[in-house]
């Protein structure tokens, strides 16, 4: 189908965009890369009074390092992230996960800020943000505030951002040098939404585990941080038994739903299988 009628605005500054959002009092939608919102408009599942298009705001597209973080302008395209040397050096987990986002012609338009603000629980960027304990900067009429990943995702397609705020920046802590990482995903076809995805980061200290981070995509209404499994590794190291125990533990930590793609039981099983694969691959990448 075709989109319903709407007012269209393409401001050139964030201030203008905020003013427009205020004017429509919650009836406007922010248009980023459009790879999720445009299909919703075409299906007429979304009927906003207005679209505030951020694509003409050049100041929202950048990748830079600051204060131990890699900071992304909200409108940074996924294709840019895929090839970014800073991402490859500092947050390689995000680079690997981004190659699972949709397909090439989706990633040329899709943005990191849009993906996170859309908050599809099966999406890759929210899982990575959760695993890395990242945060976003939201700008609203009263100024800026920082929202941590754990406080951002509320439920399916819902964040704690208010309708008069715009997500302007995504911040991910740079991964420790030598950290092992892996993003494992299972989908029926490459580029489809994950049935389950696992983001893993580990830091080795000899045979000990100095740090473990595990988060999911596709296992419920929000990305799930698998803290109890991380603790097993941080306590017992990376022996086969510890990895086995952590991979069993993760199945207890998620409450996935059944849908046409997979049953809840299957998703729970897959969470364990992919955790094990992710940890083994991360161990292969890690340098002591």
């Amino acid at each position, binding site marked *: *189908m*075709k*989109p*319903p*009628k*709407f*007012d*269209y605005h*393409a401001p050139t500054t964030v201030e203008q965009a905020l003013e427009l959002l205020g004017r429509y009092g919650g009836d406007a939608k922010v248009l980023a890369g*459009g*790879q999720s919102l*445009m*299909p919703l*408009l*075409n*299906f007429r599942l979304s009927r906003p009074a207005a*679209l505030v*298009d951020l*694509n003409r705001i050049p100041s929202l597209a950048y990748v830079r390092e600051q204060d131990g973080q890699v900071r992304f302008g909200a409108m940074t395209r996924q*294709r840019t992230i895929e*090839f970014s040397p800073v991402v490859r050096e500092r947050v390689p987990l995000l680079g690997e996960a981004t190659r699972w986002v*949709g*397909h*090439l*012609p*989706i990633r*040329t*338009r899709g943005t990191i800020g849009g993906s996170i603000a859309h908050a599809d629980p099966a999406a890759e960027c929210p899982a990575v943000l959760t695993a890395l304990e990242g945060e976003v900067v939201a700008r609203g009429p009263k100024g800026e505030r920082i929202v941590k990943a754990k406080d951002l995702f509320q439920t399916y397609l819902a964040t704690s951002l208010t309708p008069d705020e715009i997500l302007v920046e995504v911040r991910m802590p740079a991964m420790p040098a030598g950290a092992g990482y892996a993003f494992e995903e299972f989908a029926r*076809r*490459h*580029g489809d939404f994950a049935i389950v995805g696992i983001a893993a980061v580990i830091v080795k200290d000899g045979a000990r585990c100095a740090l473990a981070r595990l988060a999911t995509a596709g296992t419920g209404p929000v990305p799930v941080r698998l803290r109890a499994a991380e603790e097993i590794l941080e306590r017992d190291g990376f022996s086969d038994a510890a990895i086995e125990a952590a991979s069993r533990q993760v199945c207890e930590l998620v409450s996935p739903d059944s849908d046409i793609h997979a049953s809840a039981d299957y998703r729970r099983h897959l969470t364990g299988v992919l955790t094990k694969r992710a940890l083994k691959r991360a161990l292969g990448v890690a340098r002591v």
Partner: protein
Amino acid sequence: MSDLVTVRLKVNGIECEGRCEPRKLLVDFLREDLGLTGTHVGCEHGICGACTIMLNGEAARSCIMLAVQADGSEILTVEGLMQNGKLHPLQEAFREHHGLQCGFCTPGMLMTALDFLKTNPSPTEAEVREGISAVLCRCTGYQGIVNAVRAAARTLGGAAKGESGT
């Protein structure tokens, strides 16, 4: 209909202009306003890939983008691939290797493959399969398309890796 917007863009090297509602999809603008029906409309929600075009040098879905968003851009559609009466090496390879049957997905396949080979000039068979997974073909079973893209890679100067599928 007072809220029409003017869209100016360069398509296949030619300056074009049209007026449309802001809600008009880029693919419909190309087909209806500019008469360029080579770009196909399939699913209209960014899944099938038939509408893929090159937008400022990168492959993009024209069914999930508004025409007004393309104002000021440079677009390449399948009509612009042929140069001086000569098929593009990708088109030649699709013909040679039976990379199409009904032809519905072909414009999207060609534009996707064009961007794919730009960033990966010497792909393996598996990489080609991942690259073209962006476009659905209901006829060929993909083998001919994979062969065509790998053959085009060789013609365009990249050395295809691996043995299988050649």
